[in-house]
């Protein structure tokens, strides 16, 4: 029960679950729904045990109906509840896109601000060998969905702290979780661990190159930085921990310090959010750049269902290392 007092080691999936548990204990308006989230505990285990603790009134298995899952979450949010709705795969965004883009993000604005829409939509993303529809990282699609926050943790401590903040925030939050990270273990602080939304983390300090990365690419970039250290290149890794609100101060401060930028994400390069970040840096900090910006991303092809083929497509630490070496 309640919060752990000391630092503990949790998987990313357990960290999400602990955040849900702590916030459900704290606020009875918080409930969880989605496909297979109750008895089954979520296909990634992120809601395991919640049904036993909170009962079927607050942990709810829905029909396979993403339009309803998101639309009804908006209806519940504007009438006093704080839903956490799970789409079993972020690849289902298309089934719920009107509800995500026009309803969750805009219901407050278009009705003159008379409502708040305090909801969290959990969106498992990323390559896992399931194919072109399930393995997407569609965060950039929501860059133009003003009104909604886009939050993306890269490790268990951030997953817990950002989820707790997202649940407490009165804005709608699209919360992306890389499926390849769920089993990844990390240290999580005890107590009421909150990570503010819209605050980037400098995951590693360095003076030569800034690597801006999010989600699974943060860990890959940290591994790349270790290897490059041996070659005498001092890499700073900045994790914006989401795309909106975007912490420009931290990004631009790092760029001003290093003068060299690599942006790394798993989504394909064209239409990926790296393009937006690069454009902002070009507009705001061109005078600091000593080398062209390089983007590390997937190629512009659908993600194949074959894990064997995925290894040639999905960017890794080696992709980041290679990009950093190409900088002037």
């Amino acid at each position, binding site marked *: 029960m309640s919060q752990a007092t000391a630092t503990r080691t949790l998987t990313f999936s357990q960290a999400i679950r602990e955040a849900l548990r702590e916030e459900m204990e704290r606020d009875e308006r918080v*409930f969880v729904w989605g496909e297979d989230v109750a008895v089954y505990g979520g296909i990634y285990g992120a809601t395991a045990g919640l049904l036993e603790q909170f009962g079927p*009134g607050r942990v709810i298995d*829905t*029909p396979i*109906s*993403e*339009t*309803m899952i*998101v*639309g*009804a*979450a*908006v*209806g*519940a*949010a*504007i*009438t*006093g*509840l704080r*839903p956490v709705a799970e789409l079993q795969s972020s690849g289902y965004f298309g089934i719920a896109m*009107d*509800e995500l883009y*026009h*309803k969750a993000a805009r*219901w*407050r*604005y*278009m*009705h*003159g*601000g*008379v*409502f*708040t829409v305090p909801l969290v939509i959990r969106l498992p993303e990323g390559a896992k060998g399931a194919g072109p529809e399930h393995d997407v990282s569609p965060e950039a699609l929501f860059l133009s969905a*003003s*009104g909604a926050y886009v939050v993306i943790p890269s490790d268990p401590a951030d997953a817990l702290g950002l989820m707790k903040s997202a649940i407490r*925030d*009165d*804005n709608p939050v699209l919360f992306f979780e890389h499926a390849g990270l769920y089993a990844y273990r990390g240290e999580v602080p005890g107590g009421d661990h909150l990570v503010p939304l819209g605050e980037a983390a400098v995951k590693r300090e360095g003076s030569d190159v800034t690597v801006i990365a999010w989600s699974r690419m943060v860990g890959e970039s940290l591994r790349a930085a270790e290897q490059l250290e041996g070659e005498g290149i001092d890499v700073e890794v900045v994790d914006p921990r989401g795309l909106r609100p975007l912490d420009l101060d931290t990004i631009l401060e790092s760029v001003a310090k290093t003068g060299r930028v690599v942006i790394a994400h798993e989504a394909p390069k064209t239409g990926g959010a790296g393009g937006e970040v690069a454009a902002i840096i070009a507009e705001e900090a061109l005078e600091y750049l000593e080398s062209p910006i390089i983007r590390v991303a997937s190629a512009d092809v659908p993600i194949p269902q074959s894990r064997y083929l995925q290894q040639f497509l999905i960017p890794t630490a080696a992709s980041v290392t290679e990009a950093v070496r190409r900088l002037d």
Partner: protein
Amino acid sequence: MTAISPATLLELYESMVTMKLWDQTALRLLQEGRVLAGYHSGRGQEAIPAGGVAPLRRDDYLMYAHRGFGYTIAKGMSLAAMFGDLMANTAGATGGLGAGIPHFADPELGILGQGGTLGSCFGIATGAAFSAKYRGTDQVVVCFFGDGTANRGAFHESVNAAAAWKLPVVWICENNGYAVSVPVAESTAGRIVDRAAGYGMPGVRIDGMDVTEVYRATSEAVDRARAGEGPTLIEAMCHRFRGHYEGDPQVYRTEEETERLLALDPITNLEARLVADGIATDERLGELEVRVQDTIDRAVEEASSAPMPGPERLYEGLYV
């Protein structure tokens, strides 16, 4: 079948007259170039918002459709605020965002707003009904939609979940025979009311031009929902007198058809009945109309005096 009291009949009549005079006034403002919005006249369909909203409590929830402003008028929304939105000025309920498609809302009155992409009402209605049940209140949601909207996929997902979970919703389909220009028979398999059986809930098809039928059917459905017995689908057959929107050339129907419809006017028919049954005199109903028009005129005046928003309005109310 329970009788409707004379007092209730008069209230329903006044409600419909308000909608009709509102419509006339909005059309006049439109002609005068004072309306910065598209307008979908509700003339002819007043019995449905009047009879469908009257059984609700103040704290019950309303998801309204885009045809006329009868639903929000019946739920008690400020007339001046709605005129302000038509004029896109700061008197509007949205504080100056206007009403290309109306997005009036008033949480205090349970008015939850409207989406411009038709069909999004279904999910939000299911969620509001879930919320009422979760919070242990006995609030009910009434969701209005047209026969055209009934063919959006969101209908199935949301109506199914609401029925599976026995949520307190009343689904009221206004079947006026046309989805913009396409006749129902060409676009819709079977009868919409028959879908209720597929979801294991009661369904009833009624004459939507008769406010007493709408009031009775909705009252029964609201009572059932409030008692925890789940949703109901009401299909109210009706006719719209004007085009889908102002400026609609209506090439899909003949002038004879629209003229024939006028004999079905739900307001003049109730008026004749009130007089014939001795509930009201022509004189009294005439006075009522003058009083309602006066209220509407004052609301127009109040709304007209408000300033237009400045560019800073664009950035307000997006984030908390």
